[in-house]
């Protein structure tokens, strides 16, 4: 049974986006990947505003912290305060390993926090693990379209 899983990747770094997409594409499960390049865009996408009028609600959000306009933790706070959006698992995927960022993320109900490994192979394996866990193992809520 092939399940279409929709992932929203929020990152401003094209290189990271490419790497993440590469890694996700290597995965066994075929996914749909949407990309938002700053916090504001991410919220517009989730709220189906402007150019994202026709977007679909994602099953999983990969959220970077260092974002232009509105940073990741702010976006997280808004998502987790929205009665509908808060059900979507948010995985903080960032280069930061700062204690403060970790705490703020969990305080705002991030579902998990992952520091991007510098090493490509490790990064790939982390993304694979995310997929494995959150898509194959975890039972996600049914998102109302």
């Amino acid at each position: 049974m092939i399940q279409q899983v929709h992932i929203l990747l929020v990152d401003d770094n094209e290189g990271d986006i490419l790497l993440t997409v590469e890694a996700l594409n290597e995965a066994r499960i075929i996914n749909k990947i949407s990309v938002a390049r700053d916090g504001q865009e991410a919220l517009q996408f989730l709220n189906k505003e402007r150019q994202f009028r026709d977007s679909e609600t994602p099953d999983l959000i990969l959220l970077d912290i260092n974002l232009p306009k509105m940073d990741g933790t702010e976006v997280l706070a808004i998502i987790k305060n929205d009665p509908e959006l808060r059900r979507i698992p948010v995985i903080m995927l960032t280069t930061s390993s700062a204690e403060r960022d970790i705490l703020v993320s969990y305080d705002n109900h991030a579902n998990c926090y992952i520091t991007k490994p510098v090493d490509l192979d490790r990064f790939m394996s982390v993304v694979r693990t995310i997929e494995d866990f959150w898509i194959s193992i975890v039972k996600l809520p049914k998102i109302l379209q």
Partner: protein
Amino acid sequence: MKSATERTLVTGIVIAIVSVVAFGIVSIWQTNRVQTTSAWIRHANQLVYQLQKVVDLGTQYEIDAKGFLLTGDSTLQRSLRNTAASLRKESTDLRELTVMDEGLRPAQVDSLLATITLNKDVLDRAIGGRLARGPAAATELLLKDGQTIISDRMRVLSTRLDTEEKALLDQHRQTSRQNISGLQGILAGMLGVLAIILIVFVFQKNRMALSREKKARERLNLFNRELEEKIRLATAGLRASEEKYRTIFYKSPLPKWVYDLETLEFREVNEAAIRNYGYSQEEFLRLKITDIRPKEDISPLMDEVRDVKAFGDDSRYGTWRHIKSNGELIYVEVTAHPMEYNERPARMVVVNDITERKRSEILLQQLNEDLLKRAAELASSNAELERFAYIASHDLQEPLRMVSSFLQLLKKKYQGQLDEKADRYIHYAVDGAERMKILIMDLLEYSRVGSGKENFEEVDTNRILEEVTETFRAQIIKNRARVEIDPLPAVTADRMQLSQLFQNMIGNAMKYRSEQSPVIRISVKEEPEHWQFCIRDNGIGIDPLYFEKIFIIFQRLHNKTDYSGTGIGLAICKKIVERHRGKIWVESAPGQGSAFFFTLSKHQ
């Protein structure tokens, strides 16, 4: 001196006592003799008197009896009876008086009394005859009895007795006089001796007193002379010291002056004051002490003057500012002593110019402030550097990750599709990126060993070592290593950092092992102020040349093919130890193993 006086006194008293006793004995003896003689005289006088009485009565009886014989007057008969009775009584008294006498006296008295009695008897018989046969018969009887002879005999006897007795009396009186005069002589002698003794004693005493007085006078004279000498010297000294003090005042290298406490005018100024302040003596003496003060100091000066007047005959010490005649402001230490000048209250002031010192102080203070500023700057720049290192390493990671990741991706996807050269280029690029990544990670770790004390707590080092050896378990087994750990203390430290410290140390000991299987020994020594830990191994050892270098960040002794690493481990150790106010050093020799020591202060 005193004992001599006492001796003289005692001698005098003894002599006086002996004299008095001797005098007493002699006078008692002499008095006895005088008394005996007096008794004799008294007895002789009584005897003479009594004898006279008896003889008188006998004679009276004879006269009365012959009267009756002639006249036959019967009244005479009564008188005769009375006389006879008296005669009897007095005769008995006389006999009693003489009965105890020695020699012929009692016999003579008896003889006299017998004659008187005989005479009386003859007269009584004649009276009887006349009464019986008339006067003629009486006369006849008288003649026949030889009355006149008896009567004469009576008179002779009594006269002899009287004469003898009187002679004896005279003799006694003579003796008595002799005795008395003897006594007087002895007394006089005694008194004389006593007087002589006393005179001698007094004279002696006097002489001693005189000699003492003489000595005292001599001493007094000597003393007087000495005193005079002293006074003379003192007067000379006084003049000299006056001169000296004038010199001290005028020639003193420190400015000195005397000012009147009421008028505040200068009264005396010394040469140093004239020289230092640039006023002539005349100018000075026209000034008041307020004239050499900056305006703003006059009010506190007047307060001080009021205070001195109210409370102070004491010396005062203070730091002031003065103005020289050329307007230069100087800092001075002023000592003021109370004195009288021309019978007016005044103050003598000694001035010490401390302008230079003050300048040095100000300079020193400035230097200190600069130093503090510099230290603060250094601290802040250190902190900034740490922050910079953190940010740099943190922010460098992002582009590095890109370089590294895409090189790896390139290698992974296109290795073998390009030529060999391209593959080698990719290899070096990947390798460089890899090393840079490690360096950045280490730098990040190093910069994270901050300088704050926020995570300090009581830490059991035994527990830390248990945990650390646990992380090395696989390596220990692989290397057949032995880790010996002595009982360790609890310390105040940052748990994470202490753990990292031991981890780096044990890691190094394991890494730089020799041919033998590693033996790592961890011990501790307690010092008064700190704990001294030691991590000793039997590894390859370190050349003393590099003892300092090994603790510097990114300094490596070995090439990367022999031993991996960036050379950050010991630099981090050093930073951790220094953050715990300790020191770290190594003792080693190549091939001899190494002993790393570090201290942790007990007072964090």
